[in-house]
């Protein structure tokens, strides 16, 4: 085994990989932004009274849940420009990051719509009733009482979804976008496909530390925002 395994490749790969986290973060950040907006819209559709829009939103979520990311990515990467070309818009010059962000946003939106919906539903209806009974308007009741509480419930699931998103780098690489995962592939190619194991171990260490940091960050956030929630109190 020593013949093939050389731990120095692990330590050398890490500093080479780290700068490419920038791309990972950029893609994840944009996807979270757009995906959350989409998720909010879908959640509103699901919670609303209109049967048709409920069905559309649920159908969309099912399709997204059932489609492997790589398939979705290719359909977007080649399908979207093909559609836009009919309107005389040429998207072929767009950076591949653009398509990656679209793909991830569509997926993230489906995930978030469920997160938002269940968070909303977890808030006792009595909170709304109490709010209007002391004279708050509908909007005020949602803005000041319901949403702040639903937000705390949604946080951990939001963190999980974010973690999933960060790990999709392998996907972005297939259309040439170089994030940490892509850089690892390039390093391996630079070594003529040898010592790939060590490089991937280095890569997984980075991902691991990153995910632990994100987890901790969300735990902190939850603590900060959950003032007044029951589980703070130890019986």
């Amino acid at each position, binding site marked *: 085994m020593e013949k093939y395994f050389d731990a120095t490749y692990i330590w050398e790969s890490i500093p080479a990989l780290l700068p490419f986290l920038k791309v990972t973060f950029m893609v994840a950040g944009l996807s979270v932004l757009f995906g959350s907006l989409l998720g909010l819209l879908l959640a509103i559709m699901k919670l609303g009274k209109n049967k048709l829009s409920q069905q559309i939103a649920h159908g969309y979520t099912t399709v997204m849940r059932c489609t492997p990311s790589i398939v979705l990515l290719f359909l977007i990467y080649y399908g979207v420009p093909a559609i836009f070309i009919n309107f005389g818009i040429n998207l072929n010059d767009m950076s591949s990051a653009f398509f990656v962000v679209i793909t991830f946003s569509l997926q993230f939106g489906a995930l978030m719509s469920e997160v938002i919906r269940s968070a909303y539903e977890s808030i006792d209806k009595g909170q709304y009733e109490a709010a*209007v*009974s*002391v*004279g708050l*308007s509908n909007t005020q009741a949602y803005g*000041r*009482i319901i949403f702040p*509480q639903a937000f705390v419930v949604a946080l951990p699931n939001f963190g999980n979804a974010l973690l999933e998103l960060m790990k999709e780098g392998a996907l972005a690489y297939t259309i040439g976008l170089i994030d940490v995962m892509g850089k690892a592939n390039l390093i391996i190619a630079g070594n003529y496909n040898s010592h790939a194991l060590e490089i991937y171990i280095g890569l997984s260490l980075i991902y691991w530390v990153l995910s632990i940091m994100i987890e901790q960050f969300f735990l902190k956030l939850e603590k900060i925002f959950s*003032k007044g929630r*029951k589980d703070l109190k130890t019986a």
Partner: protein
Amino acid sequence: MLEIQNIHKSFGETTVLSGVDLQIGKGDVVVVLGPSGSGKTTLLRCINFLEKADKGEAIFGDIQVDLHQASKKQIQAIRKRTAFVFQNYNLFNNKTVLENVTEGLIIGRKIPKEKAIEIAKNALNKVELEDKYTAYPAELSGGQQQRVGIARAVALSPDIILFDEPTSALDPELVGEVLEVMKTIAKEGTTMLVVTHEMSFAKDVANKVVFMDGGVVVEEGPPKEFFENPKEERTRKFLRRVLPDDFIYHI
């Protein structure tokens, strides 16, 4: 002060209220009794528009409203004159005790913040929670939470406070403290409409007891008469079940 006429309400197939009338004078304490499912909660919720009645009218001093077709403005106007105390408190979990009380004053009634805090503190002191301003609901006992609920209602100085079984979610030992507070408020002349199973409260504090069953008012009258001399057979049957007939110990 408040007059309710001919409220009807069904949920799908089940009719819950079928023509309830009610008169409450200024300063009255009216207690509503009745078996489970008789529509007591629904009645209170319809008055406060938490539920939309199928039919019925409410006359609130100078305001007269169709309970089925009230406009948003009318609803807001009536909600300004009422306050609700919920069975399971329904305090705002994300707000401190003080904020729970000021929320409706500052945001709902547009009272300046400082004035609102003053009012809120007054109300909280009345229910003996002067040391809990900054606590969160989760940090309070059930009895304390319900007292905040009452302070929240009192602070709005509504024309009438609606109580829906305010003590039934409490441990037996905590019931006393909440009833005590309700008595105090009643003595100050607050108009109250109270759904409760606490017979002692009905007997001691109410001017009028209303007994509901199957979505209609079966019998009403002053408490002494109601308990000692119920006219209707249904009322008697109910009282027999609820009052431990052999409970006559003195201490």
